[in-house]
């Protein structure tokens, strides 16, 4: 093992031997085979199938803390990219991973992050085939930023998209809402709140395949990440030109998430999820989709939360716990804790 340092220095970004050691021993070694090439040459039989289409996505990831209950920034990045592909009906094949590392970052941490990334990609049948590292001075980044891109293939005949949602389609969420957002808020420590909550960060690739097999008519799915369920539903309603009606009673949520939201005056509908999706499925296939989801680890908590309607196109409404009704709009800015 040539790498003797415990922390990253600017030397690891200098293009010399130190950099080569870092890349090879921390990243390339686990992203086999043969990870972190500058240029990956890709070939896959699935691409040759007539009617198959490529899916391509990219995302950047920042999170504080870098390691949190239920995951780390690497898992977040890989699962985020896998999920972006999966909800579009694509089977993930290849990923890229680029790292902006703040000087002083612990090398053991990088190794743990790289390890999670390799494991998560492999579990979904994808490989990390290219990548890059840059080291920046102290204060120029917050520990570690990760950018991933992903390529997948959409098999012939599959056509998922928010525009395909029709009135009558049933809305299903794959699990509890808000676990990630609440777990991160607590893990950050500045609010001095502690919980046993674990982020829902996980790959939904297997779950999506199961849903599409069981309910081939599935109109669309979206992972409810930033902006939470509210953002996902609003985007879908708008793209489809349908209204969406959900039942507050039906929303699956951990007691701790509710508690945290009550304490800080937050609305759980806007909390981020990193392993929970919402799918719209024709009514006659809803039970099959639900059963398929529940048959996967990621979808054990799946439930029907509402449906698409022809009324109020582009708008999401919710029947409150109380039988009242209110509009669920997109969030204006960031949700801030409040006292009043």
């Amino acid at each position, binding site marked *: 093992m040539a790498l003797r340092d415990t922390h990253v220095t600017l030397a690891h970004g200098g293009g010399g031997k130190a950099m080569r050691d870092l890349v090879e021993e921390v990243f390339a070694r686990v992203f086999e085979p043969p990870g972190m090439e500058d240029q990956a040459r890709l070939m896959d039989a699935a691409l040759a199938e007539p009617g198959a289409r490529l899916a391509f996505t990219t995302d950047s990831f920042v999170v504080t803390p870098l390691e949190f209950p239920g995951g780390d920034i690497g898992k977040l990045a890989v699962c985020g990219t896998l999920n972006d592909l999966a909800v579009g009906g694509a089977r993930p094949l290849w990923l890229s991973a680029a790292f902006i590392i703040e000087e002083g970052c612990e090398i053991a941490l990088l190794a743990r992050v790289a390890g999670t990334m390799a494991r998560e990609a492999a579990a979904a049948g994808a490989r990390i085939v290219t990548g890059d590292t840059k080291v920046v001075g102290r204060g120029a980044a917050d520990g570690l930023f990760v950018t991933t891109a992903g390529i997948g293939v959409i098999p012939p005949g599959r056509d998922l998209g928010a525009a395909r949602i029709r009135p009558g389609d049933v809305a299903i969420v794959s699990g509890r809402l808000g676990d990630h957002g609440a777990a991160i808020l607590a893990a950050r420590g500045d609010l001095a709140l502690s*919980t*046993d909550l674990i982020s829902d960060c996980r790959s939904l690739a297997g779950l999506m395949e199961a849903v599409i097999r069981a309910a081939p008519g599935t109109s669309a799915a979206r992972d409810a990440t930033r902006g939470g369920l509210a953002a996902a539903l609003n985007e879908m309603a708008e793209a489809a030109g349908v209204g969406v009606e959900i039942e507050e009673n039906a929303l699956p949520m951990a*007691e701790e998430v509710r508690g945290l939201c009550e*304490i800080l005056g937050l609305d759980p509908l806007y909390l981020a999820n990193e392993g929970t999706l919402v799918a719209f499925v024709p009514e006659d296939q809803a039970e099959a989709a639900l059963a398929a989801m529940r048959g996967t680890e990621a979808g054990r908590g799946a439930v029907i939360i509402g449906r698409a309607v022809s009324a109020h196109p582009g708008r999401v409404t919710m029947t409150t716990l109380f039988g009242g009704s209110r509009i669920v709009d997109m969030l204006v800015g960031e949700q801030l804790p409040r*006292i009043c």
Partner: protein
Amino acid sequence: MCLGIPGQILAITDEARQLALADVSGVRREVNVTCIAEGPLEDLVGCWTLIHVGFAMSRIDAEEAEATLRALREMGEAQAALEEMEAGRAALTEGTAPGPTR
């Protein structure tokens, strides 16, 4: 104004600064208990309190809570009776006897 939330005192954490650990639906936070302390702080363990910005502001009176709920329940029962009477009357005027709908 003034978000307040019921929580239960789990343990005293800092006697001198009058701090205790409180639980709100599985979320734990250190709170100041000066406003609800009457006797020894240890007596507060198990106590339900209304928490606002990290301060236990008031003890929750279980009897008063029950009285409010009882009043609400009675209102519910009265309403149910009323609706039953009205349904009966409506059925009579329509010339059919009230019966189970399904």
